[in-house]
């Protein structure tokens, strides 16, 4: 058995793992990274990036088709056709460029990458094939996997997001099980690509993690796109048609060509002998403290493996921090807020506390929103729905949360997160000149409106 020694060993080359490795390399820590599949993990290969690529294809196709029918913009084109295999090829090109880029960055920072499945032996020993790696610090960054439903095993017409991101053809009919962000992002994309899409959701509204006011514009857009919603419906099984139970208890048979199961993700704790460490757990995730330390000394867990919120940018920040901790710096993971973005149409972004969360935290808050219907830039983007909403303490006007829904609002997450981290008050945002004409003006106006003097409303 070949044996290797290193200071830092990272299991998992996703956004958490590879960022840990890059930062560790910058800090001169001898580092080995073990990846069983492709560098970049779920995010780059079968998650964030490919889904955004597919969403872009769908939007372009949808727009062209729209113009071929009744373009208010005066554009006339003939009806478009779609070669989905070329779309997938284009998407794969982006993924390749990014994963190759990650590999180059790791190499540049002198990180040794070992391809293979890690098997944990103890807190300082990991086997990969017939190589034994001894380390002083172990970072667990194995990410998460899709939750499967026993009654809908993946295979044939039943697919997970992974298959949905590499379609060989666009199905005529698609039923999405799960009305969360993954199901809706893909469901909307497939609808725009031409499929008849239905969404089955057990709760009484889509995106149940967010409040009804915020999700309403998405709900309206789904209606307008012709996506059928089966809310408060539960899945019973599949035998050529998908059987669901409606709120009255009646069984419906939904005719469909494919079923996309998107009911959430769970920490990837299986298949690499994590049990050997006997770490304290927090539900299905590994329990960590504010420095990502597990219950075992010098063993860290970051990213999805450490539980919610399962977001790549959280994992990256944790990874950066852990590398600095190992180098001897004093660090703590204590963000004021972590932005969450849904790339639905319209997009939805939540940063910091929602009005309900602020109330639950015992804060007396001002809640104010500004609609994109009154924003010039939104009109020029043919986007009239949606709004920006701000939540601020009544006593000192410190902003505790931002939410927005509308076309292109994902980019506003930057401004939102920054204002929260900097401890901005309503007056700070109201007093910052926001360029005209931009969607960002709605941010300033929401703050002004909270102060009682919005200008354009």
């Amino acid at each position: 058995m070949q044996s290797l020694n290193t200071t830092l060993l990272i299991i998992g080359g996703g956004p958490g793992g590879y960022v840990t490795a890059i930062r560790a390399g910058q800090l001169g820590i001898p580092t080995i990274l073990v990846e069983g599949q492709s560098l970049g993990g779920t995010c780059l290969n079968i998650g964030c990036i490919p889904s955004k690529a597919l969403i872009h294809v769908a939007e372009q196709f949808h727009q062209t088709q729209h113009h071929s029918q009744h373009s208010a913009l005066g554009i006339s084109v003939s009806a478009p056709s779609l070669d989905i295999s070329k779309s997938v090829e284009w998407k794969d090109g982006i993924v390749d460029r990014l994963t190759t880029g990650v590999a180059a960055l790791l190499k540049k920072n002198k990180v040794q990458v070992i391809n293979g499945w890690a098997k944990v032996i103890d807190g300082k020993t990991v086997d990969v094939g017939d190589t034994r790696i001894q380390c002083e610090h172990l970072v667990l960054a194995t990410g998460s996997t899709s939750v499967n439903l026993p009654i809908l095993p993946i295979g044939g017409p039943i697919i997970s997001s992974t298959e949905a991101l590499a379609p060989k053809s666009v199905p005529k009919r698609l039923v999405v099980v799960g009305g969360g962000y993954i199901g809706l992002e893909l469901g909307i994309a497939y609808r725009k690509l031409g499929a008849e899409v239905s969404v089955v959701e057990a709760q009484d509204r889509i995106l149940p993690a967010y409040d009804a006011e915020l999700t309403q514009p998405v709900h309206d857009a789904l209606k307008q796109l012709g996506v059928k919603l089966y809310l408060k419906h539960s899945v019973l099984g599949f035998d050529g048609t998908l059987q669901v139970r409606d709120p009255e208890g009646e069984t419906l048979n939904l005719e469909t060509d494919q079923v996309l199961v998107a009911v959430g993700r769970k920490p990837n704790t299986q298949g690499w002998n994590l049990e050997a460490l006997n770490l304290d757990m927090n539900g299905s995730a590994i329990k960590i403290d504010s420095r990502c330390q597990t219950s075992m000394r010098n063993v860290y867990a970051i990213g999805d493996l450490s539980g919610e919120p399962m977001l790549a940018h959280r994992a990256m920040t944790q990874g950066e921090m852990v590398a600095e901790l190992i180098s001897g710096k004093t660090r703590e993971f204590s963000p004021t807020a972590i932005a969450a973005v849904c790339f639905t149409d319209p997009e939805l972004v939540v940063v910091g506390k929602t009005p309900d969360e602020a109330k639950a935290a015992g804060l007396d808050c001002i809640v104010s929103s500004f609609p994109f219907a009154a924003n010039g830039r939104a009109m020029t983007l043919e986007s009239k729905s949606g709004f920006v909403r701000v939540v601020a303490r009544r006593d000192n006007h410190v902003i505790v949360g931002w939410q927005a829904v509308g076309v292109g609002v994902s980019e506003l997450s930057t401004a939102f997160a920054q204002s929260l981290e900097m401890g901005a008050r309503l007056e700070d945002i109201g007093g910052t000149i926001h360029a005209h004409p931009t969607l960002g003006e709605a941010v300033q106006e929401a703050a002004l409106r909270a102060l009682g003097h919005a200008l354009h409303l």
Partner: protein
Amino acid sequence: MGTHVIKMPDIGEGIAEVELSQWHVKVGDLVVEDQVLADVMTDKAMVDIPSPVHGKVIALGGQPGEVMAVGSVLISIEVEGAGNLKESAAPAPVKEAPVVAKVEAVVESKPAPAAPRPAAVCQGPMVAREADERPLASPAVRKHALDLGIQLRLVRGSGPAGRVLHEDLESYLAQGQSNASAPVAAAYAQRNDEEQIQVIGMRRKIAQRMQDATQRAAHFSYVEEIDVTAIEELRAHLNEKHGASRGKLTLLPFLVRALVVALRDFPQMNARYDDEAQVITRLGAVHVGVATQSDVGLMVPVVRHAEARSLWDSATEISRLANAARNGKASRDELSGSTITLTSLGALGGIVSTPVLNLPEVAIVGVNKIVERPMVVKGQVVIRKMMNLSSSFDHRVVDGMDAALFIQAIRGLIEQPATLFVE
């Protein structure tokens, strides 16, 4: 009568849990201010928790070995006066916040007027914040505070809504330092940097042993002045005569010999005290620990059976052990099992030291530097080489008179070097 509650303090670095190692008090005990109540341990350090008040212990918050959350109640003490615990410790009533349904109804409002800023002179270093209240500060300020080892919640924020600014960190650091406002040259610039060194490994072990020794033993120190002129002449003579063939002698082997001879009459000094079993074991063998500075800290290699060693034999063994300890090559056996300890800082020996016992031993003899002093001998002022011996004893089992007699015996042996070798 009120109740003063002491909470598990935040020892820093974001440690959320602290292990309660040991209680020094029990329920019903009367405690005085600064009395050590408990030891708590993080993975980095052992910390004493002193009492800030006089009073009677009415409740302990945990058992030794229990891991407690920072902020949980460690101990409750009944005190004269109000204490810090309100009688009705019910949570403050939470007002039902009016739901802001109609934003239009919000009139043009201004933030509540900030409390007048206190004059600079009365700004204390502490800032009252709720335990779970997060100080308002930008990521850069938070990171800088971590680097400086500052707990942000203790820093007064001068920015809008109490935001902690970089300037606030600086003024927090500057507090307690001279407020020299005149421009100063770079060499006299205020420095606010801090370096944190983790107490781990050897250093941690030393810390624990020293703390253990000072807490358990009742140290008392005794200092005597010794005329070493004669023994230094003897040493110089022996080195001149035999130095080339047998090696040079330092004063240490003579002191080892003096200990061996003196201990014949004072067997209670060559002993180990097991304070848990309440047994003192007097030993025939004299295993002399020689405190040695190494790169990683203090080590005490042991010269075994000093009673059976000649001067040169002791000298060779001392130098061999000292080298082994400095190079980290000393074995466990060579670093344990002493019955009495000799500590010397050589030329840096100073005038007086107060050595800490190497438990479970009951005596440690410290050597100070040799200086030439004018002394009165037979009515004449003459220059003599003088050296102090600073020794500590465990007063629990060694009486002061015995300790004094023991040191006087050593003094006699050294001032009349021939007696070291007369059987």
